[in-house]
């Protein structure tokens, strides 16, 4: 690598780091957005999606499987107990717990990309429904004291 190329490359890397950290800061919902707008995305779910029923609502394993999937894919941002964190809002809030399973499924599938939540359609549909089952179960069950560490 020539000296000029090295300098250009380093400058580009610094630029990427600076821009990405600024972008990450901007899209951090907990740092810049009032509570209402964080949950407003749920209201954008189309009527057809909102009306969808959870095909696994009677599956006795769905909540436990959803708990496992939540710990693997969601807890990093939403917290071990879904209580929310610096990067993502609480899922114990009324706005989430009162939302229909279909609306939660829609949000999980589409993400909220501009606010930092990725799309999760890479998880197969049944796994997304299992996560929805788990999230909805949090309103019915007492919140566990601790989740075993991985």
């Amino acid at each position, binding site marked *: 690598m020539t000296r000029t190329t090295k300098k250009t490359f380093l400058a580009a890397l610094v630029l990427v780091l600076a821009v*990405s950290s600024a*972008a990450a800061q901007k899209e951090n919902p907990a740092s810049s957005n009032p509570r209402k707008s964080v949950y407003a995305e749920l209201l954008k779910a189309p009527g057809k999606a909102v009306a969808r029923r959870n095909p696994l609502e009677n599956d006795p394993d769905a909540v436990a499987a959803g708990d496992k999937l939540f710990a693997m*894919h969601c807890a*990093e941002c939403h917290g071990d107990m879904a209580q929310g964190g610096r*990067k993502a809002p609480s899922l114990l809030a009324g706005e989430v717990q009162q939302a229909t399973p279909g609306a939660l499924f829609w949000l999980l599938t589409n*993400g909220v990309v501009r606010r930092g939540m*990725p*799309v999760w359609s890479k998880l197969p549909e*049944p796994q997304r429904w*299992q996560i929805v089952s788990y999230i909805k179960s949090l309103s019915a069950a007492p919140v566990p004291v601790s989740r075993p560490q991985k």
Partner: protein
Amino acid sequence: MTALAPLADAQESPYIVTYDHYLEEPGSLEVEYFSTFGTQRDGNDFHAFWTEFEYGATAYWTTELYFDGQTTFNDSTIFTGFRWENRFRLLQREHFVNPVLYIEYEQTSGADKILKEVEGHDVEADYAIPNGLARKEHDHELESKLLLSRTFRGWNIAENTIATKNLTGGNPWEFGYAIGASRPLALKALPKRCNFCRENFIAGIEMYGGLGDRYRFGLHDTSQYLAPVVAWNLPSDWTLRLSPGFGLNDDSHRFLLRWGVSREFSGFGEALGAKLGRFFGGRRP
């Protein structure tokens, strides 16, 4: 690195050449190592390898840095260059087809053999040149891809269209493609954590090859490959990939055996920012 960020279980696609439309989660760093063994007619077989650092800058932008090298048997082991790749999600929500724009700058030598993408009139004979000669050629390439992908009923279908311009010399735009299809072996997750659950395995197939250049577009004098792929996403945070590839015409390597291992570090960006902040005496988080 584990001190910087918690580990996260990955759900990685099995593709090695093809890209789907899923980007790295924001703030996550994925460290990957890939290896390609290739047979070579009229020359020595080779083992090419690359290390990849993939960072989710935002939910719609992933940036990656690659370092390439290769060993040609009975010849030498050399570093062959680096690549800087960026992928941008173009639409906010999921649609029937989801486009992602891919822009890459690469500075490699003519001895690079990772075959991460096959384009233009790349043929097997190009790789038979001894390292000492091949490394004297320096390529500065700008590569763009349009990645189209969709996941439906557990199946992911992805198509990548490649257009590459070598910025040195008067080389024309070269074209290539990659297509892939894959599916987890089980769609529902079991309640317990397990290594060998079918849900942890994703299997599929990919096909890739060159499409000629601006002046001679088509399949003539190009190499084409078909490769089954499988990924094993372990709950212990590792992903393993394996892909035996087969050349489909006389201009292709007869056999490519690829494998890769990767590990994802969630929240890496945030943790690094906090550490750097403390190091430079800034505000504590």
